[in-house]
């Protein structure tokens, strides 16, 4: 579904991503781990077509991000890191805008879509409120709602549970897991237990390089008995690793 091949991204003289390659198939939930500034968000932004790579390619469903950005964008639901939106719009206004921009037309179809994601993301109680008045948790869920609105085959979620309380985190994880069957999902996170809870693959990236690409079980087996946090610390504190 998603093929990333030797991706490189330079910001001026800084190399943020230095030759990242991996594949994600339908049914996969890929946990993207790494310290801040490791290149996670940059890689995700390239896959969504928002940033152009300096070198290498990324493709979604056979469409190259550079050549067919619009086709790629149609197939992706993306939750940006900042869960950015338009603060003065109400939740309903915002989601209808996204639905229209995604090419849905006709009030009936749009309403059906909105009703679906509003229930899934538990936004009923705030649907008529301006986004700027919402708490971080709700804003995050609005971001998630816009990402899944068009039922995309690929989901790219940049820290989807960031800012949520433990119950909401659980809720969002369940939601992601339930959608996984017929989607390819990449999510970045700092919370290692999250990877254990929902992902079937782990990629650890540091300084723009993929250090680890394996299953959570293999990842845990690296240091039996140790907490997953420790393994992560060991990996990312060293310069280079296998």
């Amino acid at each position: 579904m998603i093929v990333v091949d030797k991706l490189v991204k330079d910001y001026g003289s800084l190399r943020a991503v230095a030759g990242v390659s991996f594949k994600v198939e339908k049914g996969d939930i890929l946990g993207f781990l790494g310290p801040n500034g490791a290149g996670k968000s940059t890689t995700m932004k390239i896959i969504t077509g928002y940033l152009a790579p300096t070198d290498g390619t990324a493709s979604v469903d056979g469409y190259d991000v550079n050549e067919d950005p619009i086709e790629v964008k149609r197939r992706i639901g993306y939750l940006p890191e900042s869960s950015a939106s338009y603060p003065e719009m109400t939740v309903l206004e915002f989601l209808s805008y996204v639905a229209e921009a995604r090419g849905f037309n006709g009030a009936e179809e749009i309403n059906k879509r909105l009703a679906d994601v509003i229930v899934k993301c538990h936004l009923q109680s705030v649907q008529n409120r301006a986004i700027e008045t919402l708490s971080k948790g709700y804003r995050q869920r609005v971001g998630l709602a816009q990402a899944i609105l068009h039922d995309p085959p690929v989901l790219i979620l940049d820290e989807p549970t960031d800012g949520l309380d433990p119950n909401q985190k659980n809720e969002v994880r369940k939601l992601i897991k339930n959608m996984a069957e017929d989607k390819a999902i990449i999510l970045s996170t700092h919370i290692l237990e999250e990877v254990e809870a929902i992902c079937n693959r782990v990629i650890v990236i540091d300084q723009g390089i993929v250090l680890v690409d394996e299953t959570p079980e293999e990842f845990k087996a690296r240091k039996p008995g140790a907490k997953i946090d420790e393994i992560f610390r060991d990996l990312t504190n060293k310069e280079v690793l296998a």
Partner: protein
Amino acid sequence: MKQFLPVFKKELFGYFRSPVGYVILIAFHLLTLGLAFYANFYESRQANLSVLFRFLPWILLVFISATGMRLWSEEKRSGSIELLFTLPISVASAVLAKYLAALAFVAIALLLTFSLAFTTAYLGNPDWGVMLSGYLGSLLLSAAFLGISSLCSSATKNQVIAFVASIAACFAITIGGAQGLIDYIDDFAPTALIDFLTNLSFLINYQTLTIGLIELGAVSLFAFFTIAALAINIVILKK
């Protein structure tokens, strides 16, 4: 281009979702009417809108820079630009949609000053052709100003910088033909330079339209600046 309409609609309604749009419209209206009366709209006893069009370029310069400054810098600052450009929308149609929504907002502001035109028609017997040509000129001038303003906005995250840069750029291209400046440099500057400045000046070309002459040169100058600014705007955003 199919996704043009949702963005256009969202942007245009966006001006009226917060008080900002109303405040800008009211301020613009009070300022234009205030200056028209200050310039003896009634006392001059002329059935035309010359008092309005005399000040309008200078008011538009500020008003449009204030309207255009947030177009892209706000999206960049808040990060919503990421959302916009991960929707299946091309950069060109997003630029055009936002630009035309802002232009529609400016057109609403210009329409409000029709009160003066109707007053003139009620009190006297004005030449509607000249008045409408003046409005066409105002709209073309606005279109070019807004293109420049949108371009400035796309180059920075900071609305204040976008605002100041837009005013400076619009001012520079407008003042070129102002009489005071021409008189001043007349003594030492070569004629070619003066011709160049006056031919390029928004002010001179605008004045041509306000006296009822719809000249191809004037129209194409504004069109050229608008299209060039938007094209650069698209290039900047694609980077």
